[in-house]
């Protein structure tokens, strides 16, 4: 009798294991295939891609698409712009966040509560699109490139994360000892807090970098000058713009431009790779950190 139930249990567990692995394999395939397809399509022969020969492996290795990307005039300019915006954003965000996080972690900081309330209000209420737009306009920041990172560089959530990290990782005795020796807040922050908080600082830096790299909305609304446009705006014009899409359909219609249309197609795949490459380079670091980052965030706020 006991043996019988045991067998049944083993069989049930086996079915469970198979189901679990099947679910995971299916989800893996669904998520991975589009990514894989972009990669193989970008290095395949343009003709093979547009005739549907490329499905599992690259066909007729060719870097035609990448050549097109490199030769496209506004790509380099926008790439450089995005790098500049991202560096500025990361610099400003980390400095502002760490300073505020440190200040709020001090116990004898008179008025701490007021600052916390001041910040928390902004988490629940926001002006919305138009009032923000009008504010930016009245501040004279229209068409000035710093606006693309100024708007989003203060994240109350990040400040809370940094504060919690400092509070739980830098012992109070260390603080007291330093101040008895006549250390100032600035020195303490630079020589003790920052080196000890590097894990949390790097998480925040990485996330703001990815956020800025991927952003296009502020640039679309606040910038007019073509030379200031970030990469994502150029991507949008090439990948999602409806008129561009229509033009491609028309071009495929005419025989003369067939080769051109095929080139344009593989250029799009190459473009996706080129635009996403920096993120994929930092992804291993992100992945190592973000589970930690998420749980840090959920401690408070």
């Amino acid at each position, binding site marked *: 009798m006991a043996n019988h*139930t*045991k067998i049944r249990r083993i069989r*049930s567990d086996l079915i*469970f294991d198979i189901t*679990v*692995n099947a*679910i*995971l394999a299916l*989800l*893996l395939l669904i*998520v*991975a295939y*589009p*990514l894989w397809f972009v990669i193989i399509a970008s290095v395949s022969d343009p003709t093979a891609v*547009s005739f*549907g020969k490329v*499905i599992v492996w690259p066909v007729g290795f060719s870097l035609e698409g990448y050549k097109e990307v490199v030769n496209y005039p506004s790509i380099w300019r926008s790439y450089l712009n995005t790098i500049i915006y991202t560096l500025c954003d990361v610099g400003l965000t980390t400095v*502002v966040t760490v*300073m*505020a996080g*440190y*200040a*709020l972690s*001090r116990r*004898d*900081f*008179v008025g701490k509560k007021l*600052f916390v309330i001041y910040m928390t209000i*902004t988490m629940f209420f*926001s*002006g*919305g*699109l*138009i*009032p*923000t737009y*009008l*504010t*930016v306009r009245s*501040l004279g920041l229209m068409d000035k490139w710093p606006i693309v990172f*100024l708007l989003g560089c*203060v994240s109350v959530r990040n400040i809370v994360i940094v504060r919690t990290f400092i509070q739980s990782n830098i012992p109070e005795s260390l603080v007291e000892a330093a101040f008895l020796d006549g250390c*100032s*807040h600035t020195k303490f922050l630079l020589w003790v807090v920052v080196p000890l908080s590097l894990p949390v600082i790097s998480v925040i830096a990485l996330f703001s970098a990815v956020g800025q790299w991927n952003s*296009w*909305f502020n640039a679309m609304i606040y910038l007019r000058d073509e030379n200031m446009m970030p990469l994502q705006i150029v*991507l949008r014009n090439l*990948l*999602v713009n*409806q008129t561009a899409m229509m033009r491609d*359909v028309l071009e495929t219609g005419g025989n003369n431009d067939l080769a051109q249309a095929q080139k344009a197609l593989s250029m*799009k795949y190459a473009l*996706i790779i080129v635009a*996403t490459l920096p*993120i*994929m380079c930092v992804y291993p670091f992100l992945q190592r950190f*973000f*589970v930690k980052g*998420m749980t840090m965030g*959920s401690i408070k706020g």
Partner: protein
Amino acid sequence: MIKNSEYRRHTAKMLRKITRNWELYLFMLPVVLLLFLFHYMPIYGVQIAFREYKSFRGIWGSQWVGLKHFQRFTNLNMFPKLMRNTILLSVYQLLAGFPLPILLALALNACAAPRFKRIVQTVTYAPHFISMVVIVGMLNLFFAPSTGIIAILLRKINLLNGNLTTLMSASSFRHLYVWSGIWSGLGWNSIVYLSALSGVDPYLHEAAIVDGATKLQRCRHIDLPCIAPTIVILLILRMGNMVDIGFQKAYLMQNSMNLDVSEVLSTYVYKQGLQNAQYSYSTAVNLFNSVINFFLLISVNAFSRKVSEMSLW
């Protein structure tokens, strides 16, 4: 008299603390300034929803018109359609998108092969970091009428002859929107549950094994109840945002053929406000939307507190 001197001593101590910590106020200055400029000034500007805003008159100089813009919006022919599009899209998103990350987290948690588990995690988390523009661009490429991979695959198995019309048809907009969102957010959204699952007491499992529970039974009667609070809280948060479809993706996916179902409140706000320069009206629509969301969150929270004794506050 004594009270007075004590009070004075207290003030002196406080002042000393403030002067000693003057750097801390300096450290707070950028945050205070940036929040003031880019959060408080816009919040102050929301009042133009009740005024007839004219740029040359400024906020205070513009005429007060009360609820005129709100009335205009609710009397609009498009109003029911806008609300319907917005709500349908978010309900669909919630129903289809909410359970899958939980399933993924439970499966990952139950997976006995650590390497396979790591691979699945690495791959499924990745799309979260791909930009919205690229994701919509990929959709356009994959579902392209004749050269897209979907059309090619469908032709291979004889489910399609001719061109694929998914991108152009209004009826498939919601499916595309929701399922591409699930594709990109699946792994990322499962992290919360996975970290909740890692907090499950291993003794519970050991006890269950001794009692002869199968893996399925343990998953259903130990893991699932343990992450139930997390599920409820996230559900409340998600339902609080029910009438809030993010602008970016809907706008990127819009084309003249699917406008009938793809026009949602946020894209309408953008078009009225920035393309037609109807600042006051657009602000009013946005405010209307925020107020609905606010009440939704409060009522969902109250309901949950009554039913399950779990709530945000």
